[in-house]
Each structure stands twice: as C-alpha cells, then as structure tokens.
C-alpha cells in the first residue's frame, strides 16, 4: 500500500485526492508538517502561489518539505505547485522551496481571459493528454539535470528532475488520470528502490 499526500493549505485539494484514488493507494490530506513522515509521495496542488507560500512558511513546512525531497521521495507540483518547486522565479529575488533547477514565470499567458484548455503530448504519458491552463506559469529555463517532458507552442510546460515532477497546467480538473498514474508509478519505483 502506497501513501500519497496532497498538501492541503489552499487550492484544488479534493480534485487531486480524487485523481489519485486507486486500490493500492491511500491518499492523505496533509495539513501539518509531521504528516510528511507517514507518506511516500506528495502532490503540491494548484492554488494561489503567494497564498500557499505564506502558509508554507507560517506552518513550518519549509524545511520539512526540502528534507522530504532530499530523502528521494517523489513530489508532483501542478501550477502554483510548480512555482513553489522552482529555484528561480522571474521578477522575484529568489525562488521558494528551490527543489528543481529551473526558472518559472508566473501568469505567463496573461490574465484569466487568456486561460485555455488543449491537448498535450507528454513524453512517457500519451500524446493526447487533456490539459487545462489557468493563469498558468511557464518554465522559461531548465538546468541540465532537468528533463523536458512537454512543450506547448515551444514553451516548456512539463518537466522532471529525477523524482521531482512539475507541470504548469491542471491535470486534476479533468477525468484524464494518465498523468497522475505516471506520478503514482514514480512513487512506486521510489518505494521499490528503497526496499531493495
């Protein structure tokens, strides 16, 4: 049995929990740092990144989350979650958790009226993944250890660095669970690696 947490400070928590549901997966709603000890993988949901960042700091999540990533446990950040994971954010003096070697630009497409949905080809997942972009960020630069898994109009929207995965859209808003399954598989592999 795998235990996958969803960071529940703010945002689309319920949708991620639903997308992760499976016979061999227990979903844990994470509101306190000590809960990180009992889980094998974690999702940073979409929401407002400034709000989430403030709550991460306020509730002493900052260091435990960095330790969680350092321990080799998989993390999947979507939209605001991606912003939290990046080492650099355009226009800001520093990144937030600085887990993945990449630069992101917030609200890169513009305001809500520019939000859209489309089909996306994601390496290792499928070439027709439903993707909803809402006031979405973009990955403008990646380090050499970061693998680009998908692009939209030549801009990077999905990236992976070892056990860390991030995307600028919202897989939790559709019934298409293939991308979540990809992450669940990452957690499964990380778990097997530890047990061997």
């Amino acid at each position, binding site marked *: 049995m795998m235990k996958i947490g969803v960071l*529940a400070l703010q945002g689309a928590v319920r949708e991620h929990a639903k997308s992760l549901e499976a016979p061999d997966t227990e979903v844990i709603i994470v509101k306190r740092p000590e809960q990180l000890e009992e889980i094998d993988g974690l999702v940073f949901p979409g*929401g*407002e990144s400034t*709000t989430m960042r*403030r*709550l991460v700091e306020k509730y002493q999540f900052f260091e435990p989350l960095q330790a969680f990533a350092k321990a080799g446990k998989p993390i999947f950040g979507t939209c605001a979650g991606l912003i939290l994971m990046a080492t650099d954010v355009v226009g800001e003096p520093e990144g937030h958790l600085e887990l993945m070697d990449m630069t992101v630009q917030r609200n890169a497409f*513009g305001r*809500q009226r520019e939000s859209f949905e489309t089909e996306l080809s994601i390496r290792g997942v499928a070439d027709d993944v439903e993707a909803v972009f809402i*006031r979405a960020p973009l990955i403008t630069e990646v380090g050499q250890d970061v693998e680009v898994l998908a692009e939209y109009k030549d801009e990077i929207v999905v990236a992976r660095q070892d056990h860390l995965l991030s995307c600028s859209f919202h897989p939790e*808003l559709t019934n298409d669970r293939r991308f979540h399954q990809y992450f669940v598989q990452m957690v499964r592999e990380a778990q097997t690696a530890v047990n061997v």
Partner: protein
Amino acid sequence: MAERGTDRVKRGMAEMQKGGVIMDVVNGEQAKIAEEAGAVAVMALERVPSDIRAAGGVARMADPTIVQEVMDAVSIPVMAKARIGHIVEARVLESLGADYIDESEVLTPADDVYHMDKSEYTVPFVCGARDLGEATRRIGEGASMLRTKGEPGTGNIVEAVRHMRLIQSQIRKVIGLSKDELMTEAKNLGAPYELLLQIRDRGRLPVVNFAAGGIATPADAALMMQLGADGVFVGSGIFKSEYPDKFARAIVEATTHYEDYELIAKLSKGLGTAMTGMDISQLEGFDRMQDRSQ
C-alpha cells in the same frame, strides 16, 4: 487547438481559490496589504458594502481607474462587481481584464427581472444565492462560482449562516431523492431539472460555493468553513477593522485551519475592534440587499 472560456477553464479558476479568502479593496495600497496577508484574490470596488449603505443612492460598477490600479498593484486575481443585468458594465470589466466578475446585489440592480446570460462571456462570473433554487438558476445562466448572499456590509453573520445551511440541507435532500421525485423538487425549488440531476449524481454542486455577507472575525470565517463553504469573501470586515493587516492575516489562517480552535483563539487575541455591526431587523425593503434579486 486551444479553447478559451470553457466551463472547465472558468469553473477551474474558482476551484483554485478554494480554502482561501477573497478580500474587498478600494485601492492599490489595500490590494497589496491583502496580497501580503495571503488573500487568494481581491475584489476591486469604489466603496466597501458598509460605505455603500452609508452613502445611499445608486451604487454602480467601480471607476475603471480603480480596477486598473488594483490590477497593476498585485499579481493575484482581481475580481470586480457589475450591477445585476448590466451587460455593458460586465463587458467593460471583461475588456479591462478583470479575472472574475461578481454580478452583485450589493450594487443597485440594473434589471429587476433578468440576470445576465453569463455563458456568453470568456470571463467567469460569481453570483449570490440564498437557496438551491437560486443557486441552480445562476449556474443555469452560466455562473462559474457561487457565494451566499448574506447581508453585506452589516458585519452580521446570521444571514450567511442561514443561506449556507439552507443550501447544504437542500443538497442533502436532493441526494436522497429518487429520480421520479426529482422533477417535483425541481418545480418546488424553481431549479433546472438537469442541474438537480447532476447534483444528485455527483453528491455536490458542480461549482464552488463561497461564504459572503457579514463575515467580520476569524471565528466567523471558520464557522462558515465548518458549515461547508469552499472559501470566504470578506467585504467591509477587513479594512473597516482597527488593524486591517493583522485582521487580514488572522482571517486567512482561520480559514485554512478552521477546526483548530487553539489556533483560532490565538489568532483572535488583541485584534483590536472589529467593524461595527448592525442588527439586520433594522433593515427594511430595498436596504435588504439580499432581496434585490431572485
């Protein structure tokens, strides 16, 4: 092919606001305070509801200068209010780039019979509702988010509690009905049948439902979350309190941890004076904003 303004894109935007606080602001400076405090969005207004009450007269869409100033000041989403049925105010706000439009009874209605056809717009809408009939009619017109009406600008939570409890209990009832009982329930509620069917099958509303109207303290915000709100709007409560900055932070935290009573006790200490409240039984006729639309 990229598609804009779909239901998923519009409703999804509101999903991202869940568990958060949306604050009324009247200028860029207040918007910055709200953003710093952790608001998930701000509502740009010319006056907060309690001042609209005090001023009397006709309340209209804010001067675009204010909406623009607020949009320039913060990176979080900016909402703005249009009068009920005022298609042009809504289009103007959409063209300015407002991220969400509140077709709001807080302003003086422009149409006393019809609400707007909100499905026509790329920008999403939020509307107020007191019961499931009103809620589903607004969704039927294309609203992507709901909020309780409460009684705005009073600092009195009683009406928001009434609306939230009623909607929740009506949803529970619908879930328990058999399909053949549903049409009569649709008639009784004045609700579109198809939407009731969806609610029965999914076990919840198809859009998020925030609490609004009269929330004045961190405990008020936590109360509404416990009653089933997806998040809260705070109107006059923040910038009419003694220390807005402290107050805003406390309300954000109480909304996140709405079941942590020790924390809420701590947050509520030394907050200074909350906004002055108002007994709603003093209000009559047109002063009851919640009665301005059906």
